[in-house]
């Protein structure tokens, strides 16, 4: 393989992590039952957050002006990101990713649902390049499945979005209604950072809460690791053989580590999980995808080696995380990659996952 980085900017890009947000929580009112309104704007009542972040979540240079939050104005975001970087499709991943940390499962489900309606009304019609996720609160998987069925046939919806923070690992059977509904609606399941250590969820590290946001951010991927490990070990991909799961904003370099460790242990401990018919890494390579941001930044040849170890030509998808503080620009990430790998990561892997070249078009023509 040619390992020289490419400088070409001509290839198409799909951004798998593009954050739209509200101008204020008031925006949810038209979609939210009246009973929940009093707590919507009360301090700390809607999104529980434990650890102070010295750098604000959103880039201050991405504000649309008038004091509005970055990512709250579709027209500004279209210019500032889609047009600037010539992005062909952007998967909207929203801004209520702490919702799984709320103590009230009904309130959590209601605001997730309101947010989904807001996205479909205020963002999706603004640009054909936007694709939607259905955010669900995982506290009550039956309510989550109901939400997936409510919106799953919308032609622009491509995935179900689960915040990674959770009281229980996602491979466990109580979450199966979510996977059943995703499969029923031909949707990808996306697991995105959010809610780790907040509210009702277990601590950010496995040994307790860290002292600083630096310490927190360094270890966040353990939540992605824990969910992936659980989903594979519990045989979710045997139960739902068509299910695809994408892990967003967890970085990448932990994936080879986990695959090697799982495969090694499988040789000696397979008898605990007789439902697994293949090596764990084979399930991962076939069913799981991982997005680049926040990409690790070793020197370039080490990065390419790491990508090779995780079969990135099949498993890795590009993401910006616009407009959050730790977003990656397409040029910064993609110019590191040799030609064919760049094409796979920038576009092809995502186009295949979300069936953008084929069935998605068909889906738009089908009334359900």
């Amino acid at each position, binding site marked *: 393989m040619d390992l020289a980085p490419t400088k070409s900017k001509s290839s198409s890009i799909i951004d798998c992590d593009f954050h739209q947000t509200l101008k204020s929580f008031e925006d949810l009112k038209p979609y939210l039952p009246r009973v929940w309104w009093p707590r919507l704007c009360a301090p700390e009542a809607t999104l529980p957050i434990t650890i102070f972040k*010295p*750098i604000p979540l959103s*880039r*201050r*240079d*991405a504000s649309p002006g008038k004091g509005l939050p970055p990512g709250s104005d579709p027209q500004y975001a279209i210019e500032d990101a889609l047009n600037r970087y010539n992005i062909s499709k952007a998967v909207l991943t929203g801004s209520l990713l702490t919702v799984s940390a709320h103590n009230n499962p009904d309130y959590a489900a209601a605001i997730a649902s309101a947010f989904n309606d807001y996205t479909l009304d205020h963002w999706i019609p603004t640009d054909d390049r936007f694709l939607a996720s259905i955010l669900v609160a995982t506290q009550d998987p039956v309510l989550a499945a109901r939400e997936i069925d409510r919106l799953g046939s919308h032609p622009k919806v491509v995935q179900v979005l689960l915040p990674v923070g959770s009281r229980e690992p996602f491979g466990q059977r109580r979450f199966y209604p979510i996977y059943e509904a995703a499969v029923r609606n031909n949707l990808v399941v996306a697991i995105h950072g959010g809610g780790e250590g907040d509210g009702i969820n277990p601590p950010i590290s496995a040994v307790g809460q860290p002292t600083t946001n630096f310490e927190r951010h360094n270890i966040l991927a353990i939540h992605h690791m824990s969910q992936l490990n659980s989903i594979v070990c519990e045989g979710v991909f045997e139960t739902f053989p068509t299910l695809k799961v994408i892990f967003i904003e967890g970085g990448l370099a932990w994936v080879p580590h986990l695959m090697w460790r799982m495969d090694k242990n499988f040789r000696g401990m397979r008898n605990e999980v007789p439902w697994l018919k293949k090596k764990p890494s084979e399930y991962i390579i076939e069913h799981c995808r991982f997005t680049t941001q926040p990409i690790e930044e070793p020197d370039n040849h080490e990065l390419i080696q790491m990508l090779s170890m995780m079969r990135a030509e099949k498993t890795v998808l590009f993401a910006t995380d616009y407009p959050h*503080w*730790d*977003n*990656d*620009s397409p*040029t*910064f990430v993609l110019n590191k990659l040799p030609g064919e790998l760049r094409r796979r990561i920038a576009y092809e892997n995502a186009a295949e996952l979300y069936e953008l070249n084929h069935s998605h078009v068909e889906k738009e023509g089908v009334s359900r």
Partner: protein
Amino acid sequence: MRKYNAAEVGEIEVGDCKILNIEGRSIGIYYDGENYFAIRNVCPHEQAELCKGTFTGTTLASKPHEYIYGMDGEILVCPWHGWEFNVKTGQSLVDPNKYKVKVYDVEVENNRIVVNL
């Protein structure tokens, strides 16, 4: 060396940064109340517009669990990944020899802020 007449004294308030296009280069002129600093408006990490970040101070090197605030007004924090730069030298705090942003000499002449390119 060329002199560029950037702004009038009083045009940039204390703590503010005015971003100008100077001969095709985007450069921020920052005023700390005493001196003016001219800093290239491009972060060496991911090419964000650095001068749209925050001018502030930082925690100085200390013993574990000792917090000393200092360099107030001497640090520019990138609005993207939070990288800190010394406004006087352009050097990043963590990796000063590898990541440096270009800074230019600034003088005040006849009530004008002049950047030496």
